[in-house]
């Protein structure tokens, strides 16, 4: 893309994004099931579910955006859309640069292949040219600290080893945009410190980061902006502390509501 009127390009530009799941196809995966729902369609439950609706935001180069919200708010769906894995049902997602996803570490590993072969395999999945991958391999192997295991099949690895390898591949490909989903707590204490250090380095080198996490302390520490998602919509956008405070307030509010509902409708309040 070139010659846009805007003075600079955002790393990520999302406008009116909606992701809709067709419940007929996701739940009923057999012909009979689909026929069944097709015939009953008129007086049945809704056939579509909007995981995200009318979501718009921008992430500038060098920014780090935190995404928080309750379970099922659409956080992970948002990352999938940014990564290009899910196509928007409406609106648009524009991403400038190479994306690396750390959605689940170790995706794409073949258990029968060795760690070294899997580095090439994941590189091939990500479309990184083989020569580039060969140049990156030593650094990846060093960072993952696998020692002699690098030439053993990945099926012999522990979960921690797999995620270490996944993390170092995903961050070594020099992404312009890094998408992270609940992965900062990977591995043992030592690796956690080193991985957080690497994230900081990536942030410094003017990359954009989108981070989804339930651990609100990471938001304050790593992000300079945050959005709060609820039921597929952005309900708040602002500084990290501010957004976390709003989220916590809403959670508390909902808990109080639920508690008072329980008291009103549940008969006896729980006694101590």
């Amino acid at each position: 893309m070139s010659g846009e009127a805007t003075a600079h390009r955002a790393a990520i530009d999302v406008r009116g994004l909606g992701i809709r799941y067709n419940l007929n196809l996701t739940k009923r995966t057999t012909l009979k099931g689909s026929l069944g729902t097709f015939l009953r369609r008129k007086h049945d439950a809704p056939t579509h579910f909007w995981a995200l609706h009318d979501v718009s935001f921008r992430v500038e180069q060098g920014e780090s955006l935190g995404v928080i919200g309750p379970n099922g708010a659409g956080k992970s769906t948002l990352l999938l859309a940014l990564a290009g894995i899910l196509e928007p049902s409406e609106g648009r997602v524009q991403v400038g640069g190479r994306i690396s996803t750390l959605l689940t570490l170790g995706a794409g590993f073949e258990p029968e292949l060795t760690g070294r072969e899997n580095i090439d395999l994941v590189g091939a999945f990500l479309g990184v040219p083989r020569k580039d991958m060969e140049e990156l391999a030593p650094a990846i192997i060093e960072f993952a600290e696998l020692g002699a295991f690098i030439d053993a099949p990945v099926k012999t690895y522990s979960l921690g080893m797999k995620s270490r390898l996944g993390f170092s591949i995903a961050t070594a490909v020099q992404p312009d945009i890094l998408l992270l989903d609940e992965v900062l707590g990977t591995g043992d204490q030592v690796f956690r410190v080193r991985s957080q250090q690497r994230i900081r380095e990536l942030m410094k080198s003017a990359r954009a980061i989108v981070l989804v996490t339930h651990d609100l302390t990471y938001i304050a520490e790593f992000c300079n902006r945050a959005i709060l998602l609820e039921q597929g919509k952005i309900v708040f956008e602002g500084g990290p502390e501010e957004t976390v405070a709003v989220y916590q307030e809403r959670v508390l509010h909902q808990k109080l509501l639920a508690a008072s509902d329980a008291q009103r409708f549940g008969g006896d309040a729980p006694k101590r």
Partner: protein
Amino acid sequence: MSTSSRPGARRGIASDAATFVDAPSRGPIALLRQGISDLTTRLYLIRYLVSAELKRTHADTAAGTLWWILDPILQMGVYWVLVAVIFQRTTPDILLFLFVGILPWKWFATTLAETSTCITSRQGLIRQLQFPKLVLPAAATAAGTVSFAFGFVALALLYLLYPHRLSYWILALPVIAAVQFVFTLALGIMLAALNTFFRDVQNVLRHATRLWMYLSPVLYSLDQLEGQDTAKKVLGLNPMAWILSAYRNALYGAEKVNGHGIMPDWLPLFGVLGISVLLLGAAIILFKRAEPSFARILA
């Protein structure tokens, strides 16, 4: 890195009526071209997937890679019991006769079974990485081809028993296999896409391929159907019948010519090739059209 925007991002609002796919508004020719470039630009990815697949099969067995050769021989033995012992068919050099039908059929049937589930069995991968999905059925078909090639070690052993059956027509083998490869790949790509929407496909397929086998000259040859003109006409509509007959001509020869291989029927074989190429084009278009929905359906 150069900046780029994904083509998917530009597409507008999908109509609510679309239940099958929120179809991209690209024409079939563009989809076809894209599908071909998906494959040609990711050949090295296909190669890695094939080698992973080959390492996985038989990895846990004691005989290991020997199974590549044992498998078709044992299958030949089973059908020999059926055809020669129970039905008392007297075909000369019957082991070779059966083997040249069973080996390519096994390639065909197992490859279809593998490709039909190659998308649905990699749910995690498809939900986590963005890559051209077309490499998956292509890799499954290619892996099947390697195991087919191992069967020729067994074929060589059989020629030790029947040296008089060996002829120069064995050189036609790569051509016949190429036709079968294109035909199998086309069907496999279609099945992979359809099975993602309807898992029934993989169940029906098992029985369909079994029936298809009996309707193909695997355990019998077309000459043995003398006088049964209707049956012959029906078989003429079956591309696999032409492919299998070509193998049998080249590798075994005719039943009555007690000697060596004869020339395959080139004309129908190239007819099958033409149909397969068209089918492959259609399969790629269908697959590319369905591809954007895979991640959503496999949620």
